[in-house]
């Protein structure tokens, strides 16, 4: 079987998958994961899941909703990251920019129009009471391009996330984070309706395994970080992994799978504000929490 996991091997949103594999959680439950299909996130991950026929995929909430809207027969079966606390903007250490208010009249980068980064950046600015237009928003495509522009002085704050930040400790200072926003469900787990029908037990086992891995991450962050570094191999050093995982544990980054409907609504709301979604939604048709461990299902 295979699993689609956006940014697997690069970012920490799919760290539970790595821990689960390393600790044999899948095998324990009779599932043989021979491939974790990573990708650059967004709609690509969702597309990849549909194209590969993988049973379970970890993708951005917005992408899952877009695929659903287009008519693809998918179900959201778990909530994976329910906080925005891993996203923050940094400035150069000597710039004196330490809050969102310091950015009035300055330039801030985000990745792509209609991406999560744009959505939340706008929401954060609005929540800080800064009128639209006072901060110039620049879309630079990739996080790396934003950081490069920051160093060059073309923007005064740029988006960063973990473990990139841990890998660059001391290089930048945090300009602002998103703690003034409500919790939103960033990342969800999806499956195709077909797979859900044919292999409900497998799906249950996968979700259980993931849950066990999340528990382990919270209980033994250092050991778990080492496992993540091992699974990500050449892409993540142990040192950085430990620092990053510890931060993530602090911000209660990984969800165990259960849904936070307020977080889903908040995400949908911001998508509406951005123009990526219109009309109502029938969550019951999109979400199926029946494959989650019993204690995580909605009553």
């Amino acid at each position, binding site marked *: 079987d295979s699993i689609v996991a956006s940014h697997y091997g690069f970012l920490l949103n799919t760290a539970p998958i790595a821990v689960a594999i390393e600790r044999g959680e899948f095998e324990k439950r009779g599932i043989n994961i021979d491939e974790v299909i990573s990708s650059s996130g967004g709609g690509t991950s969702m597309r*990849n899941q549909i194209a*590969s*026929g993988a049973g379970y995929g970890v993708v951005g909430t917005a992408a899952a909703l*877009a695929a659903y809207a287009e008519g*693809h027969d998918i179900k959201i079966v778990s909530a994976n990251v329910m906080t925005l606390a891993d996203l923050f903007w940094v400035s150069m250490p000597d710039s004196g920019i330490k809050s969102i208010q310091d950015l009035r009249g300055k330039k801030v980068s985000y990745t792509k129009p209609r991406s999560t980064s744009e959505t939340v950046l706008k929401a954060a600015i609005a929540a800080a009471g800064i009128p639209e237009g006072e901060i110039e928003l620049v879309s630079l495509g*990739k996080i*790396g391009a934003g950081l*490069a*522009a920051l160093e*060059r002085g073309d923007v005064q704050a740029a988006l960063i996330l973990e473990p990139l930040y841990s890998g660059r400790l001391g290089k930048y200072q945090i300009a602002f984070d998103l703690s003034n926003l409500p919790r939103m469900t960033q990342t969800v787990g999806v499956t195709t309706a077909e797979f859900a029908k044919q292999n409900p037990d497998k799906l249950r086992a996968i979700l259980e395994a993931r849950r066990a891995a999340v528990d382990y991450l919270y209980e033994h962050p250092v050991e778990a970080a080492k496992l993540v570094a091992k699974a990500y191999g050449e892409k993540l050093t142990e040192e950085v992994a430990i620092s990053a995982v510890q931060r993530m544990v602090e911000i209660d980054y990984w969800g165990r799978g259960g849904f936070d409907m307020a977080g889903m609504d908040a995400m949908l709301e911001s998508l509406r504000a951005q123009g990526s979604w219109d009309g109502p939604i029938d969550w019951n048709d999109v979400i199926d929490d029946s494959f989650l461990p019993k204690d995580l299902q909605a009553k």
Partner: protein
Amino acid sequence: MRASSTTIRTALLVSAVLLLEALCRAGVISPLQLTAPSKMVTTLIGLMGEAQFWGHAIKTVRNIFVAIVLAAVLGFLIGLLLYRLPRLRRATEPIIASYYALPFFVLYPLAIVIVGMNDISIVIMGFAYALVAMITNTLSGLDRIPPVLSKTGRSFRMGRLQTAVLIQLPAAAPYLFTGLKLVLGYGMAGVIGSEFILSTSGIGYSIAFAYEGFESERMYGLLLFVILMVTILLTGVQIFEKRSQFTAGASWNVSTARKITGDESLVTRVGEVALVVVCFFAIWQGLHYVVGSEALTSPMETWDRARTLFATESFWGHVSETLRALGIALIIAIFGGAAIGMFLGFNRRAGEIFAPMFVALQSTPKVTLYPVMLLFFGLGFAAKVAFGAIHGIIPMTLITYNATRSINPTLIRTAKGMRLSLPQTFLTIFVPATIPELVTATRLSFSITFLGVMIGEMFASVRGLGHLIMGGIEVNDVSMMISITVLIGVFAISINGLLLSLDNRLHRR
């Protein structure tokens, strides 16, 4: 009377489109994957009503235009310079030859830092992609100018500049036009591809956006727009070419000997290569000082990263995955291309009908094929092999086709005179006679196939070097991106160097 090849070609294309339409309408192909052609047209018409669309389109067209004009002009001038300085040319030849194997998308952050965050960086990507096609074609054009024309220029007491403008330029024109067509294809691929992967505006971005946002109809409408744009631009160049009448005279059809610079001693050759290597590192270090580590890590930093990277076992897993995909794609591209090319060359009629299609494919930005590839090959290994093979098979086919067509007809008559059977003629005449060109084709096809595999891996893959680079771009692990790029570069240049020396040896005989 038999129908003309153009008629047949058109009929074939039309029926292919109609077949597609029928399959879509009948539901054999799901609308979630491929949109019916008629729907593409209506979507595109709808799109054309949006102001936003034209904002993107104009931006892209302008970027393409600037990129190809710059690439054409500078490519010509650099080609001229290298022609005049044969030692520089020889030292840089392997680099130029393997240029197209390098995934230079990794240099995008570098471009941003150097020129700032604007369209110029996109233009630079298109320019960088197209430039070398112009350089190589300028060189082949200049190489093939009969020396007697330059002598004629001197006999009219013309200066260097006059000779360059009034004789060398028009005499090389047929090749320059070939170069221009390639520049067009590569320039578009570079601009649209960069927009697709990296940018935040333009048609390429719109396609990526629609792709990610699951707006299939919109995406196919935009793809149709790109195809129309390619067709219009290509036709434009072709009309210009016909008008200008810069076509070679009958006397030039005889292929002139390749210009091979004399055999210098091994010491000078090594010296030249060393000089190029030193320059390379000097420029690298210099750029690093200017732009900083987030855009370009220094050679030392990169080396440190490379050492740890190369020490991990899983890294070599990626390497072997890429090599395996490359190997299979190369086998398909080389043998498939050679077989198709020979068949088309052998069968005049089929050649007349299908060869122009390959020429057109050559200049289509293959990124546009990606969604279609996904449809046919799914995700992962098969898709990237297919992507590599599709890139490589086109030049292989075209060069083999031309080589087969230009086999000395006397040799074929000789075969008939010796009462050889068709298979005998094929094995004892056609194959050996085209081998030097087949090696050239293999060399070019190697680079392009490699690039195809890399791009395939960057889009959708689980493993492989392209996948690592893509991840590197995502999290800005510059030192890793650069280490892998350098590794790929060294590999591509070595293979190319080998093929090049084989190529030169075969062409010398």
